[in-house]
């Protein structure tokens, strides 16, 4: 670790927090309908869709509309992928995507996971990338933000019957937040060297006379929304490690900024929407604290290097460089890793599979904590609010009072639903991993022997259920078993989680908003910040420790003992 490295990390995080403040306020304004510069486009969409923007929806209506939009998005994307061989904008003449892979990919992009069992430049036509995958990058992020807004509204006032209108929230977040940001960030990426063209791949002849295919495509615009929407699905196979997807340290820093700004901003939006900005700042403090600690661990582990390689004669100066790019350096690789997994993004600028055991443990554990640090666009906010409810419940148990959060009584129904949601992740991750580790058809996908092989499998289901999308890439994921079960894990992680959360929102919205009294437990001070951080760690993380002990932790001790597999 160097001072310059920490200065890079501090600079990027400072810019994230500084921009989250205005963006958070802006999102609250858009949610309240105070931003209208694209009103004619909005009106045209509502008109054709037959939507009355003034009509509010209860939690069931809101959730059903969300499920219908996602089902329609899945159907369209699946059809596009299967049929890409017959459709235009396919200069490389790629065939249609095979059924299991198309199923997995369509679920993956609709659920904001962007797990990829294919390699973009070797499988996807320009049309599939642009009109299929890019569009779901927008819609899945806007879906997450819309759901978060609905949950925020439940806390805003007492006796509410509706949580807003899903179609209006979806369209407004797309038009006023995601689209303008994507255009600006996308243009910056082009200036930095990310291609944006419909021309076919170029055949080059290298200085030594060898043929080299230069892949191209409309990449910059998609990569912009890939980060802003915390989607993470690479245009090219190796994601942001690809020199066209992450051409420079500046580009990688901008990608870190882009994948953090909306989740952090939404924490502050929550404060604005409930009329107490301190509440949003408390959530942001928990998120930021974890990001800094996680970055420090990855940075320390990776700059320490791999002892086996150091013993073989590798100079320790650069740290562990297997799977890393020279232009980014260890500091930006560590920050990218902690932010992409904390934020449910899943883009990578270095290959986790080749990280040291502890460096690889951090991204996996960040996802297992529930994707709340700061979590995905929208999903991070509604998930950390579930933990906030559990935190006040724990605090209430300790002092023997009915817990309240923002003047809303948290009672048995809410706590049961919250626990139901929180248990989805361990059930999906540990359940599918356990089954896969005894199935020959699944074990044959593992590349590395020893505890690292277990980590590869555990990471895959962690990533899918957490809707992250990053991978320990040695796993051969394009098999019917993994395409199918990882697809199911993604569905569970997104929808089995959010339906109980919306039920909590519906139940809380209807309750009266009690005035603060002397007995109210303040939820904006350091005590609550510490309590929430502890609840995330214990309720979110504890159940994964046995599995982690068999994977990365066992591998760490094997490495120290000089054992290879």
């Amino acid at each position, binding site marked *: 670790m160097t001072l310059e490295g920490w200065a890079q990390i501090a600079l990027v995080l400072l810019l994230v927090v500084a921009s989250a403040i205005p963006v958070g306020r802006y999102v609250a304004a858009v949610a309240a309908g105070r931003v209208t510069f694209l009103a004619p486009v909005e009106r045209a969409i509502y008109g054709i869709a037959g939507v009355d923007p003034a009509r509010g929806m209860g939690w069931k209506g809101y959730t059903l509309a969300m499920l219908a939009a996602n089902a329609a998005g899945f159907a369209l994307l699946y059809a596009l992928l299967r049929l890409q061989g017959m459709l235009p904008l396919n200069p490389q003449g790629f065939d249609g995507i095979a059924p299991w892979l198309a199923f997995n990919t369509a679920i993956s992009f609709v659920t904001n996971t962007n797990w990829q069992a294919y390699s973009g430049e070797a499988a996807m036509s320009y049309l599939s990338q642009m009109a299929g995958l890019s569009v779901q990058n927008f819609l899945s992020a806007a879906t997450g933000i819309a759901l978060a807004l609905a949950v925020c509204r439940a806390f805003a006032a007492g006796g509410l019957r509706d949580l807003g209108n899903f179609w209006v929230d979806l369209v407004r977040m797309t038009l006023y937040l995601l689209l303008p940001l994507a255009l600006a960030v996308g243009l910056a990426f082009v200036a930095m060297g990310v291609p944006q063209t419909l021309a076919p791949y170029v055949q080059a002849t290298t200085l030594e006379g060898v043929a080299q295919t230069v892949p191209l495509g*409309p990449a910059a615009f998609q990569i912009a929304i890939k980060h802003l929407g915390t989607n993470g699905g690479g245009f090219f196979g190796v994601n942001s490690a690809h020199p066209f997807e992450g051409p420079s340290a500046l580009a990688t820093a901008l990608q870190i900024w882009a994948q953090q700004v909306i989740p952090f901003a939404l924490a502050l939006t929550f404060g604005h929407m409930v009329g107490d900005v301190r509440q949003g700042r408390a959530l942001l403090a928990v998120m930021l604290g974890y990001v800094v600690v996680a970055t420090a661990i990855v940075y320390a582990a990776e700059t320490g290097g791999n002892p086996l390689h150091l013993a073989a004669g590798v100079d320790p100066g650069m740290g562990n460089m297997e799977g890393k790019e020279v232009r980014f350096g260890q500091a930006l690789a560590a920050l990218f890793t902690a932010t992409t997994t904390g934020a449910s993004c899943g883009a990578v600028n270095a290959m986790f599979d080749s990280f040291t055991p502890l460096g690889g443990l951090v991204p996996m554990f960040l996802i297992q904590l529930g994707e709340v640090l700061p979590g995905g666009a929208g999903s991070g906010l509604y998930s950390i609010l579930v933990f906030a409810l559990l935190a006040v419940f724990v605090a209430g148990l300790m002092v023997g009072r009915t817990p309240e959060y923002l003047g809303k009584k948290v009672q048995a129904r809410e706590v049961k639903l919250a626990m139901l949601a929180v248990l989805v992740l361990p059930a999906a991750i540990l359940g599918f991993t356990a089954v896969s580790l005894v199935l020959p058809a699944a074990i044959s996908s593992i590349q590395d022997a020893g505890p690292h092989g277990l980590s590869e499998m555990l990471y895959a289901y962690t990533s899918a259920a957490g809707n992250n999308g990053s991978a320990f890439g040695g796993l051969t994921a394009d098999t019917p078993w993994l395409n199918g079960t990882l697809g199911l894990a993604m569905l569970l992680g997104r929808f089995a989680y959010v339906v109980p959360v919306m039920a909590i929102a519906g139940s809380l919205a209807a309750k009266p908003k009690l005035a603060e009294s002397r007995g109210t437990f303040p939820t904006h001070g350091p005590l609550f910040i510490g309590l929430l951080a502890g609840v995330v760690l214990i309720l979110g993380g504890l159940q994964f420790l046995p599995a982690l002990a068999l994977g990365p932790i066992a591998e760490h001790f094997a490495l120290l003992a000089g054992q290879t597999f």
Partner: protein
Amino acid sequence: MTTILRPAISVVVLLTLLLGLAVPLAFTGVAGVAFPTQAGGSLVEREGRVVGSALLGQNFTSERYFHPRPSATTEPDPENAGSTRAAPYNAAASAASQLGPTSEALRGAVQERVAALGGGPVPADAVTASGSGLDPHISPQNAARQIGRVARARGVPEARLAALVAQHTEGPALGLLGEPRVNVLALNLALDGLR
């Protein structure tokens, strides 16, 4: 049912037309006018022929050139359908080794590479494969170690090559972001231009 299906289908279709076709096509047009070189893949030409992209690494094995990092990219094996064989810097299929830290295969590969470079200590980037398999850069230390070999192969004084490497060493962006590095293709092009 139609109260849900009509908005679901129309919103998804309309936003696909807008965000998936109209906007990206217009954006492609603007990008091509504003930044034609970058939008087209930063292609590098010599004597009218495309020799690669300034951003993508390419393989060099000749003693007369500076060598890039090891690359884990592969290509389909024509003699064995369904399997692949090593093909360093195959830009049509970016890939990393994905080998874990306790992998015997990785340790063996690193040991072999260190030995091939005449023993340690060697800069880490010289003996490890990058995340993309297409890393265009090497560290300045890695370049410095190669100066002697290239100088002998070309019959050029080492001091001249050291100056050329220094000239092609890029520092961190804004003086802070990223690491010092040397673009191998740019350096080797300059090498061919020496007289």
